[in-house]
């Protein structure tokens, strides 16, 4: 990258707090920056931005007395989309509900509107002092009355009328994609069939200037005319002169119980989804949930091993007990048995107990022991919710989380000041255990009750509970972008914002990592810290939030105790002087999120920085720097690439059983039709058009195709070539849209397939003299383009092109791609690779649960080998390990699956679930699920899989 220094200088003169030395992102003149800003604000209909100054003000009021901050503001605009897609799930849930009376209208929207109302109301009260210029005709009396009603009874929505002065002649320039509602009213609206809902305000718009419209409100009339989804835009378009518009606004009042929890805080978060609310606040009705936990035989108990006397009080030794007290809790009442076992068994077997199984009310319950010093933690989980190995994994993760946030278990459970937050964390943990992956979906108590009451065993969750972060490796170009940005952020180069101050810096950044939609994109942390952070995100529910919802702004700040600094405890003194002395200091985690990106940073106070005193609250400067980094990453298009990458899942490509079955049918037919076999994988469709359209490839195709025809019958390939060269677009769309029984489609597909073969091989041939990977070829192309431009949007495009031009690599050998699922765990790095499945059919869910069940079994078996390898020679001969198990490195299981498609005869599909253990160069485990058609070499497969991380 040339001219980096100059760019940096230019950026400094602009006063940008964070700048990036990659040349591409930082413009060297004011114009392009401004042009971005303007294009950025004009795209208000698609994304609502806010400046960082606003952000800092937003969260300041949310800081708790202990300096912690959990600020989450959901993005209502994106939430609407999510709600729409999730509406079927909600519908199903509503059917199961025995008592649907709590939400008459159903859906999250109603609830959020209800919640909004009370805030709006309160805001009105405060705002009334500041003499609003707007004429507000607010019929609030209804809400006032409603607040006295008992909890849980649905309120009638209150309707009030708002006057807005609109002028269609003086429209703000919001770009041509802005809707009439945005330009005229300054309201971002979501229109569905029956109603129009306010999702956001246009900054400085008409509506933003007054306070009686709130996000989540419904517009029910314009100038007295009833509004529906169909006529809203029409009604606004008819306004052709400046006028005063009377908007009927309907907003849902909120239950007073909720209001109390809200009003206790002086916050101004405009909108939160239920999940975000659950994460950022502590539970609204813990008693009820505690009661449900009591019924479902889960529990957490923290006990002292020593100091118990014969005649002591009944609860002696019980440090912590949840749910209920030690008497009502089953675990608490039999704690003596576990204490005895824990002290007795080491005498017999030289090792402490790890788990017990007990039968309570004919339900098998696993109890997991975790020892810390002379205290033990007991966690009880019913076996229907998770198997014993899963329970052990979950518990160790929970313990890790508690140690990360509270330094040690004893500090966590015995300290009074933590009791509220510990209750919250324990409750969340147990709820997640009970509901497994559905935890994020619970909206209220009755749905929680229904889900826990359901007796069906939880699906096996192998990779979901492994202590490793799910990594999605982006194209190399994007990876470089991310690494650059993160490095710049980590350099902590505070630049001009405090250049005149001689102050010592507040924090050192130990490292940071970037998540997108719940997947790790990049990490600059030691693997122990990465695991700590991943655990933190998972236990706090932030991973689910990041995965399923988009946030407008998220700022979390908390003091933590990372493992890399031995949890802030004194490390045992060794004889040798350590290479690096961990400074005595304090550590903080800072999570900053925007949209579906999250930047997690670990900050160190101590050593070379100012010592942290008291309970430090987040520093605006660091938060802003993180926010800017995220914005920069979005500007360079990394976020959108990540989204597309996750969605498309191009490298490596996985097949779905249904598609495979389908291709079995069709390929059999097409082979008969064409009489030859196609020698390239079916993942070509996505990349087809872009390669065809690239002029250089097309040219080379012409010149080289003759030489490449060896295996193909000449008449077919020439016709195919013609077809591909001129109507490639059509052929792709043909392939995508035509039904399966159309023979014409099959011919087209066959041709296109063959074409693809030739094209790909050409681009291969042309682009890389030094490498045999087609990936390299497209790399050099984008590289060339990069040097010739500094425009950000162009970079984005080129990066995207990069994605499109990628020929997906296939993991398996053989003609077709037959991998359904894979999990690649690097225990050293704490990351796992696995495909992201967007939609799951019933067949696939079945296969996946088999895969996870078997993989867990295999994983458990591999522990023998792993632990044996760790033993030294003498120990090994004396160890109590089954000697026939110590050298197992591969384990496979073959399953059968009946795929039924409509009224066709069920197709029997057999598939392998194979696990393989590697020791060199680093310990890794690979689990693959593939169709049983061509034998696979797991070593090669794992190699190909590992290669994809290089981007």
């Amino acid at each position, binding site marked *: 990258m040339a001219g980096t220094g100059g760019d940096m200088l230019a950026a400094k003169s602009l006063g940008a707090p964070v700048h990036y030395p990659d040349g591409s992102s930082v413009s060297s003149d004011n114009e392009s920056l401004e042009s971005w800003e303007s294009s950025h604000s004009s795209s208000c209909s698609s994304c609502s931005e806010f400046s960082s100054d606003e952000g800092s003000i937003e969260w300041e009021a949310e800081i708790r007395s202990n300096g912690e901050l959990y600020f989450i503001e959901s993005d209502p605009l994106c939430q609407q989309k999510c709600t729409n897609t999730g509406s079927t799930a909600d519908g199903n849930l509503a059917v199961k509900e025995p008592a649907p009376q709590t939400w008459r209208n159903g859906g999250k929207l109603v609830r959020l509107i209800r919640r909004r109302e009370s805030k709006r109301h309160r805001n009105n009260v405060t705002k009334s002092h500041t003499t609003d210029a707007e004429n507000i005709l607010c019929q609030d009396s209804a809400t006032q009355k409603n607040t006295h009603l008992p909890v849980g009874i649905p309120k009638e929505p209150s309707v009030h009328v708002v006057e807005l002065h609109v002028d269609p002649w003086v429209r703000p320039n919001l770009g041509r994609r802005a809707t009439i509602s945005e330009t005229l009213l300054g309201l971002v609206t979501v229109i569905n069939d029956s109603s129009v809902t306010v999702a956001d305000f246009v900054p400085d718009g008409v509506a933003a200037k007054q306070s009686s419209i709130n996000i989540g409100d419904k517009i029910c009339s314009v100038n007295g005319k009833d509004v529906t989804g169909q006529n809203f835009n029409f009604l606004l378009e008819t306004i052709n002169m400046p006028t005063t518009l009377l908007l009927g606004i309907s907003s849902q009042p909120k239950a007073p119980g909720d209001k109390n929890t809200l009003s206790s805080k002086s916050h101004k978060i405009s909108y939160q989804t239920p999940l975000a609310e659950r994460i950022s606040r502590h539970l609204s009705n813990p008693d009820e949930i505690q009661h449900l936990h009591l019924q479902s035989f889960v529990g957490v108990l923290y006990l002292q091993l020593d100091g118990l006397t014969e005649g002591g009080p009944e609860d002696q030794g019980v440090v912590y007990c949840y749910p209920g007290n030690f008497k009502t809790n*089953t675990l608490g*009442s*039999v704690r*003596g*048995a576990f204490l*005895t*076992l824990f002290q*007795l*068994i080491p*005498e*017999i*077997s030289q*090792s*402490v*107990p*790890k*788990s*017990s*199984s*007990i*039968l*309570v*009310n004919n339900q*098998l319950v696993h109890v997991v022991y975790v020892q810390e010093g002379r205290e033990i933690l007991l966690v009880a989980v019913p076996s229907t919710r998770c198997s014993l190995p899963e329970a052990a994994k979950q518990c160790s993760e929970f313990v890790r989380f508690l140690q990360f946030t509270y330094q040690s278990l004893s500090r966590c459970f015995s300290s009074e000041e933590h009791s509220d937050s510990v209750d919250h964390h324990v409750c969340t943990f147990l709820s997640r255990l009970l509901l497994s992956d559905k935890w994020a979906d619970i909206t209220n108590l009755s749905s929680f009750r229904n889900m826990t009451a359901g007796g069906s065993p939880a699906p096996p969750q192998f990779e979901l509970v492994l202590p490793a972060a799910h990594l999605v490796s982006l194209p190399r170009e994007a990876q470089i972008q991310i690494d650059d940005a993160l490095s710049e952020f980590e350099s902590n180069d505070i630049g001009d914002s405090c250049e005149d101050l001689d102050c010592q810096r507040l924090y050192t950044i130990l490292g940071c990592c970037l998540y997108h939609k719940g997947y790790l994109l990049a990490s600059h942390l030691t693997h122990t810290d990465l695991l700590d952070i991943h655990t933190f995100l998972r236990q706090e529910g932030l991973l689910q939030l990041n995965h399923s919802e988009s946030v407008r702004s998220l700022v979390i700040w908390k003091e933590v105790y990372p493992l890399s600094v031995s949890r802030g405890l004194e490390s045992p003194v060794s004889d040798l002087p350590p290479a690096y002395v961990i400074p005595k200091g304090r550590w903080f985690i800072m999570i900053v999120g925007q949209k579906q990106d999250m930047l997690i940073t670990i900050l160190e106070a101590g050593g070379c920085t100012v010592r942290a005193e008291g309970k430090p609250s987040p520093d605006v400067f660091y938060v802003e720097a993180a926010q800017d980094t995220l914005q920069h990453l979005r500007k360079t298009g990394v976020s959108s690439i990540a989204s597309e990458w996750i969605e498309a899942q191009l490298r490596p490509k996985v097949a779905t059983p249904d598609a495979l079955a389908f291709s079995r049918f069709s390929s059999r037919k097409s082979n008969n039709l064409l009489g030859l076999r196609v020698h390239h994988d079916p993942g070509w469709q996505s990349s087809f058009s872009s390669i065809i359209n690239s002029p250089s490839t097309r040219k080379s195709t012409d010149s080289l195709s003759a030489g490449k025809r060896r295996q193909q019958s000449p008449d077919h390939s020439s016709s195919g070539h013609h077809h591909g060269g001129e109507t490639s677009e059509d052929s792709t769309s043909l392939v995508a849209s035509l039904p399966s029984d159309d023979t014409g489609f099959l011919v087209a597909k066959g041709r296109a397939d063959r074409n693809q073969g030739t094209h790909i091989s050409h681009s291969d041939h042309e682009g890389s003299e030094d490498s045999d990977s087609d990936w390299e070829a497209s790399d050099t192309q984008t590289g060339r383009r990069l040097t010739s431009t500094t425009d950000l949007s162009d970079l984005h495009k080129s990066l995207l092109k990069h994605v499109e031009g990628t020929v997906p690599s296939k993991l398996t050998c053989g003609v077709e791609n037959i991998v359904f699922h894979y999990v690649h765990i690097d225990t050293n790095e704490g990351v796992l690779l696995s495909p992201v499945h967007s939609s799951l059919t019933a067949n696939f869910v079945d296969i996946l649960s*088999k895969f996870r069940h*078997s993989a867990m*079994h295999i994983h458990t*078996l591999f522990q023998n080998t792993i632990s044996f390898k760790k033993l030294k020679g003498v120990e090994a*001969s004396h*160890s*109590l*390990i*089954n*000697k*026939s*198990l110590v*050298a*197992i*490195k*591969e*384990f*496979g*299981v*073959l*399953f*059968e*699956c*009946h795929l039924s498609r409509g009224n066709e005869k069920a197709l029997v599909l*057999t598939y392998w679930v194979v696990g393989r253990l590697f020791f060199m160069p680093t310990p890794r485990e690979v689990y693959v699920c593939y169709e049983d058609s061509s*034998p696979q070499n797991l070593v090669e497969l794992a190699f190909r899989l590992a290669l994809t991380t290089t981007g």
Partner: protein
Amino acid sequence: MTVHVFCITSSGGLPLFTRKKGDGEVLPFSVVASLNGVHMFCKSQDVILKSTSTQDTTFVWEEFEESVVLVAAASCSNEVILRKLLNAVFNTMLLLVGIDEIRNIRNPDRLKRELRVCYPLIDKLMEGTDGSVVNFSATTSLVTRFKNANMEHDTGNLVDCGNLIGLSETVLCYESNDLMACLDAYAECLNTQFACLLVLGRELVSTPAWSDLHPLERQLLTLLTVVSSPCTSSDTPVFLPFKSPSIPFRLVWVLLVPGVSILGLCGPTPGLSEAEHLALQCWGPSADHLRSTTQISPRNFPHSIHFDHNVLGFLLISVETGKYVLSCTSSEKQSWQTGDRTETNTEHGSPISVPSASHRLHVLRTFYHQAAESVLLSSEDLEFPKKEKYDNVKESLALEAYWCSEYHKCHGIRKNTNVLCVLYASSVPTHTMRLLSQQTLKTLTTDKQLLW
């Protein structure tokens, strides 16, 4: 590696017996009492303690007939195996003492004395849970013992039985049809439906009624002959834990030729001497025949059948009838032909490239416990008697499973009600194992003369 099993009365907490297998210390009474106390305390709180596991040891509690509590503790084992062991131990008690004595314990001291006859059988069962130690010094000694067993045709208690708890061990033999006729004749003379011919502690042929017994009953009855002190005939009163837990039968055992014996379950008559006489009458003519059948061990299937030389051993299980064949030295067929050369190979050659016989047995047993049992078989498969007529294979079960170790490979395959686990040399390509296993299974199960 230690296995502990102890039995305590539920009401009084009095210890009935304590058995130990392996090199560990005998558990002191205080520990036994505490382990029982924990279970008892939980029971008083309406919580049943089932098991506890540490890094390498598993403890399992089980109460039977609300009268006795059995506790097992073992390293390198798992809960499923230990639970089966406890069940087998309890059935041993029923077999030799009867259910009435155990249900109503009037005099614990007397019961304690009566239970002493169970010790050899319980010890034998505990060997089956042995999930560890194949050290090579023991292996070589075992090989020599094998040679001795083969040459001298000892009574068979030196032969390492497969000992898969809950299943009865058999051998595959072409002479079955001829011997069947003799067996029927003998059973008729003995006036019983239950009779069975044993070769080195494994069933060779049996009457249909014998085959209908619960597999665990069959296993216990045959093991009883294996563990009994060397003699030529015996007469033991036994209760059948599933068929007649309170009315005893007489188990009449007669040694025909060294290594081959005949079992019959009969009523008060005929007496032992008469039974011996009858046995001589019925089996005398085929004595040479019987002597030749002992050659089959430890191959346990006819020498005329040959498999690929990479097949080092196999375990064939019939889920339907609850019987199995464990063959560990099929590649040693050369030793029968070429004599000394391969024997030295087994002893002095690298134990890694050619696993010794007992090592092979051990690997197969481990594969069965760790892979086949949990993946290829469902829990109902091993429950007897079958609740309903056996349908086709459940869809949820796996069809095949394999593992590759540094030193060997194992492959298990299930077809209908048969499960075959094969041990291969590590040089076999993974996908070739499937073909070889399918061939092997076909050879073994389709041969009508083998009476599988």
